[in-house]
């Protein structure tokens, strides 16, 4: 039997790693993409033990280099087809710091918005040539409404929202599905410094499970955990004169 082909960009992300553990419960052929060989090797070893029949390889590149992204997707990715691709990388900058440091601000916008869009564009191009596939992009609830405590990160995630919307429009009725995932605050290395927010953070296992379930059903938008769909609907609809008084 042909193994399912999976590509994971930002494969060292804790959320991605936990999704991969679910997907690899059945043997798959997986390409893990990241920036650090050492960290990718750790993830690859873990997946090899958990799923000995899977074929697991990894590749590194500069996440902002369009040529590198293009050639990775064209060459390194399995020749046949991509059944499932997850774009998971991201970085939550210190908002106050990137307000003052414009280079940092640019880097945060680039990593969280431009880089995932470059990967997505290259991946759907490949999927178009090979007859379809499922693309999953991790956005964030932070992209649903701008707020003072994280709008630089949030606006980058908001770009992904519109970007994925565009892809969904472009591929409607085709064999390509594109899904946007919006996790709520989750306990991962990205949020490790938010110590005192600890109890409000969802366990990464349950966020991953929610994502995997939604992807399995072919959902177009996945809030993870699901309760965030309701919370964000309320937040999106709060009149501005109330919202702007909130200290969030």
């Amino acid at each position, binding site marked *: 039997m042909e193994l399912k082909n999976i590509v994971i960009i930002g494969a060292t992300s*804790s959320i991605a790693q936990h999704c991969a553990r679910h997907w690899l419960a059945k043997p798959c052929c997986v390409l893990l993409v990241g920036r650090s060989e*050492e*960290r990718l090797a*750790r*993830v690859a*070893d*873990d997946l090899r*033990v*958990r799923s*000995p029949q899977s074929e697991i390889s990894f590749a590194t590149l500069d996440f902002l280099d369009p040529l590198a992204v293009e050639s990775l997707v064209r060459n390194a990715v399995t020749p046949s087809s991509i059944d499932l691709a997850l774009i998971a990388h991201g970085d939550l900058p210190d908002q106050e710091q990137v307000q003052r440091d414009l280079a940092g601000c640019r880097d945060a916008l680039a990593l969280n918005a431009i880089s995932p869009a470059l990967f997505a564009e290259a991946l759907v191009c490949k999927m178009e040539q090979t007859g379809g596939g499922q693309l999953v992009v991790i956005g964030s609830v932070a992209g649903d409404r701008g707020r003072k405590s994280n709008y630089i990160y949030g606006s980058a995630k908001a770009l992904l929202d519109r970007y994925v919307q565009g892809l969904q429009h472009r591929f409607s009725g085709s064999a390509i599905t594109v899904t946007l995932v919006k996790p709520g605050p989750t*306990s*991962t*290395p990205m949020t*490790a410094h938010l*110590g*005192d927010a*600890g*109890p409000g953070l969802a366990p990464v296992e349950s966020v991953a499970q929610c994502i995997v379930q939604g992807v399995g059903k072919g959902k177009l938008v996945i809030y993870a955990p699901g309760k965030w769909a309701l919370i964000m609907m309320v937040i999106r609809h709060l009149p501005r004169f109330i919202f702007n008084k909130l200290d969030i």
Partner: protein
Amino acid sequence: MVALASWGRLGSWQHEVTQLHREKGLAQVLADSAPGIAYGMGRSYGDVCLNPGGAAWKTRGLNCFIHFDPASGVLECESGVLLQEIQALTVPQGWMLPVTPGTQFVTLGGAVANDVHGKNHHAMGSFGDHLQQLTLVRSDGQVIHCGPDLEPSWFAATVGGMGLTGVISRVTLALRPVLGPCLDVESVPYANLDEFFELADDSERDWEYTVSWIDCLARKSRRGIFYRANHSSESSCVARRRQGMRVPLTPPISLVNRFSLRPFNALYYHLKKSRAGLSREHYQPFFYPLDSITDWNRMYGPNGFYQYQCVLPPEQRKDGIEAILSEIACSNTGSFLAVLKTFGQREALGMLSFPCPGVTLALDFPNRGATTLALMSRLDRIVAAAGGRLYAAKDACMSRDLFTSGYPGIAGFAAFRDPGISSALSRRLLGS
């Protein structure tokens, strides 16, 4: 600051929590936040994993497998991996943990740090007996690799060392082969302690697993149900998937109390007695009977509960256990989860390991404040007089004297302490 509790839920205390996610840079994290203590799944009952007002290093993020050789059964992984993850991965491949405690929701690091035991102590010893190597990261940046033949004194200090010698980042252990997930189980009712000891002694030769539930509230008798089991050559038995059972909230008072306990214990005894005999069971309900009820510890209400687990040397086993049980029976408080079992004739390798030859009794008492503490201190006197010891993983209130008399290995232990590590228990029982 984040509130953390342990399994006994005697309280919750503010901690400066750091999630450990990678081995790389671990020493720096420890140095930056020391003094602290490693916190695995918090399945210890007392204060061994707590450091109120100070740092707690949560190890669950160190959850990668590193290598597994299905030919030899040797497994290497990070210390935050759960025993449950190991069993789920390896049992279908014909391997299993050689020693496992009564819950599989504990981390590998926690299992090493308390040198946990299972129902097969007489056959397999304790967790430490199956380790090949540990990696220990200290708050001064030192990284020590140790094992039975490598830095053996560091190894002996760390196995059962209650997290006080450093943070264990990775573990290599040898699994044992199994034909499948099934056990052949026999349950035998007993009417008194003589019968219990006879069953226990007779069963040690032919049965790998032995344990018993004892009705510590029956007024006159010392009745109970003895369970013994071996791995089965049959491979078909279904895991009882009693999914979804959960104690949804903490009731305002303990549901385990003097009105509920006596009838409950009697019911349990008669039910199990009527079903005594041989059966084939999946390993999960046999090893982990309580794991199917999520958050069962909430049943004890907002004040939580104490566990009390002692081991008494072989010479004192009958009189000592009898004395403890009569003391409890008089106290009008008592325990549903009362477990009585014998340990085999072997010393553990850890300086502060709990298991040793003799008989061990584990009980839980709803926390009723001073009454419960007074009862436990009466029990402490019996244990001390019998030359026994208490299990630190379950303890929240033993005296320093009892700890010192129970654990002669304590004298050599100080040299291996990490000065950047301190827990509520270490301050209570070791002075720092």
